[in-house]
């Protein structure tokens, strides 16, 4: 069987000792930053991107992916033990996880979170292996109009589903698109928005924007609003959940996995939406909803499975269509491009070791997380006592060296500082940052496809609705807008008149 054959091939790639090492580094760094509040996977991956230049593409992707899903694990550990969500996706886990810990059941809570995540990760891996190849096959038929409509759809979905003010998300997408076209126009050679600066003729570096907004901007915000960190760690005595715990958790884990997988392929939804939806569903189907908020194990099992399934399935559109469904996936796409690999459906046929190796490594990484992290929980919690004032100068140092090493250019350092300030100001004004990154990555590609589509159709804009696949994307785009924007408009009118 093809799938079987491919997976074996993938495991062959992932089990080489270098790739195992990269996977281990990735999940360890991921857990570390998952535990530490104030630095998330976005910032970390952005900072580490330049270091992956010297690594083979497979190893680089394996490591970066490990950081991403490792962070989900780390986030839940601190959520349960010290009521502190390391990542936004573990906010929900705090509710019942911490209550369980206070009742002396920290061990079972951690274990069930790990088991749920592992199960969801396994399913996610299988889903990618199952649906990746047929999706890529379909995508191979895409021409410029389809790509343009598809990108339009994912940008609209990302803006609509992003957390925060929807109109501001749209504005950030537009701003990102505009930033993306800085540099030499590939079609005509015209210099755009480069202000006569040679460094800008190649465009603004992807890493510059990402590190500026997600590392520096984040640190500025954290220094402005220092949070009280009282570490009251619950003791972990026995780890293993009872049989009753297991039986109670099976349903939530299955439902959480399904919910997470569904949200995973939708652009723009972070793992937080998946885990939150799962929590609501579990509360609805529970025989006794009043147990929730007082240490119900379902409230840990469901959301933790959901956020991990979501994290894994986010890779499906990225790997098969070259389409980033979230900020982190935009960074992964950037990593591919930096390695000289053109993202898209061709990756699977031309670089099969990349696709199947990454998938296999994700399963291995999930296993590592379960096996390594449960015994090491004490160590991770100790790390929480490192004060932030010692941490952030180190983050700054790594960021600076990383950016400088890309082009040996001080100019990019100054530009990063500028984006740090801009990122902070935009966040303060209520603009969410990830939509900008998506627009920035997709901007040049979208413009290229638009121009090519118009050439193809001899200037006739109806090309986007006369080709069936493109039409389908346009219809979905409109549907998203109608479903999500209309209620908001209605509510707004209600506010004004009422």
């Amino acid at each position, binding site marked *: 069987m093809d799938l079987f054959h491919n997976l074996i091939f993938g495991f062959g790639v992932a089990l080489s000792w270098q790739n195992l090492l990269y996977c281990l580094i990735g999940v360890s760094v991921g857990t570390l930053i998952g535990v530490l509040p104030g630095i998330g996977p976005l910032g970390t991956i952005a900072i580490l991107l330049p270091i992956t230049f010297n690594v083979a593409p497979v190893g680089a992707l394996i490591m970066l992916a490990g950081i991403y899903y490792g962070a989900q694990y780390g986030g839940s550990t601190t959520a349960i033990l010290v009521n502190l969500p390391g990542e936004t996706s573990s906010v929900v886990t705090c509710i019942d996880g911490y209550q369980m810990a206070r009742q002396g059941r920290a061990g079972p809570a951690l274990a069930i979170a790990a088991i749920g995540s592992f199960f969801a990760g396994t399913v996610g891996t299988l889903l990618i292996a199952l649906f990746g190849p047929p999706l890529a096959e379909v995508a191979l038929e895409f021409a410029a109009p389809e790509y343009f409509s598809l990108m339009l759809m994912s940008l609209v979905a990302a803006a609509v589903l992003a957390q925060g003010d929807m109109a501001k998300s749209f504005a950030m997408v537009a701003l990102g698109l505009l930033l993306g076209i800085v540099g030499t126009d590939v079609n005509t050679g015209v210099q755009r928005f480069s202000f006569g600066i040679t460094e800008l003729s190649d465009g603004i570096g992807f890493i510059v924007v990402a590190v500026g907004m997600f590392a520096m901007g984040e640190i500025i915000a954290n220094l402005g609003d220092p949070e009280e960190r009282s570490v009251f760690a619950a003791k972990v005595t026995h780890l293993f959940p009872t049989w009753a715990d297991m039986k109670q958790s099976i349903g939530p884990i299955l439902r959480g996995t399904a919910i997470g997988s569904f949200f995973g392929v939708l652009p723009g939804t972070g793992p937080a939406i998946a885990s939150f939806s799962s929590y609501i569903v579990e509360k609805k189907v529970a025989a006794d909803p009043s147990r929730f908020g007082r240490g119900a194990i379902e409230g840990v099992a469901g959301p933790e499975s959901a956020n991990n399934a979501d994290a894994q399935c986010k890779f499906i559109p990225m790997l098969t269509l070259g389409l980033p469904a979230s900020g982190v996936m935009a960074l992964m796409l950037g990593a591919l491009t930096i390695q000289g690999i053109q993202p898209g459906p061709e990756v699977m046929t031309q670089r099969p070791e990349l696709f199947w190796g990454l998938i296999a490594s994700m399963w291995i990484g999930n296993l590592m997380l379960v096996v390594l992290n449960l015994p090491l929980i004490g160590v991770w919690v100790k790390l929480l006592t490192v004060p932030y004032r010692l941490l952030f100068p180190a983050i700054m140092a790594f960021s600076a060296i990383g950016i*400088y090493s890309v082009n040996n250019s001080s100019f990019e350092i100054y530009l990063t500082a500028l984006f740090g300030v801009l990122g902070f100001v935009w966040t303060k004004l209520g603009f969410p940052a990830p939509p900008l990154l998506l627009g920035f990555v997709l901007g040049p590609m979208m413009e290229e496809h638009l121009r090519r589509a118009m050439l193809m159709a001899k200037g006739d804009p109806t090309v986007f609705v006369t080709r069936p696949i493109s039409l389908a994307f346009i219809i979905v785009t409109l549907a998203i807008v109608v479903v999500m924007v209309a209620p908001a408009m209605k509510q707004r009118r209600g506010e004004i008149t009422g």
Partner: protein
Amino acid sequence: MKLPDSKDFWSGVMLIAIGAVAVFIARDYPFGTALRMGAGFFPVVLGVVLMLFGLAFAVRGLRDSAKIEGNWSLRALIVLPLAFVAFGVLMEHAGFVPAMLALTAGSAAAGPEFRIGEVLALSVLLTIMCVVLFIWALGLPYPLIVGM
């Protein structure tokens, strides 16, 4: 007249400014036709879209006045980018070690607490770590100190 201090109003002003600048600069780029779009098409359209968004926010901001939350952390906002700029300048003219020392000590100065002994120890330690990791282990080709 007092300026409105709503978050949306200033968001609008900012977007209008960015959009206007984009359109103004892009006016020199060939706009092209629908068939053969020029270099100016995308930037102008995006600039106009940004201005429209800005207008909508500004109007909304005049009516509803949700204030900007939290504080501006002015110290970090100024000191942190400056530390970065210092790193860039020193990398070109003085070498890796002075650049690192300036960056780490400068960053630390952006925080609310500044303990001189601790900051010194941290900067020296981080610099040594980075020299070992990036210069010696990863082989980045930067002089430790220019002229040495």
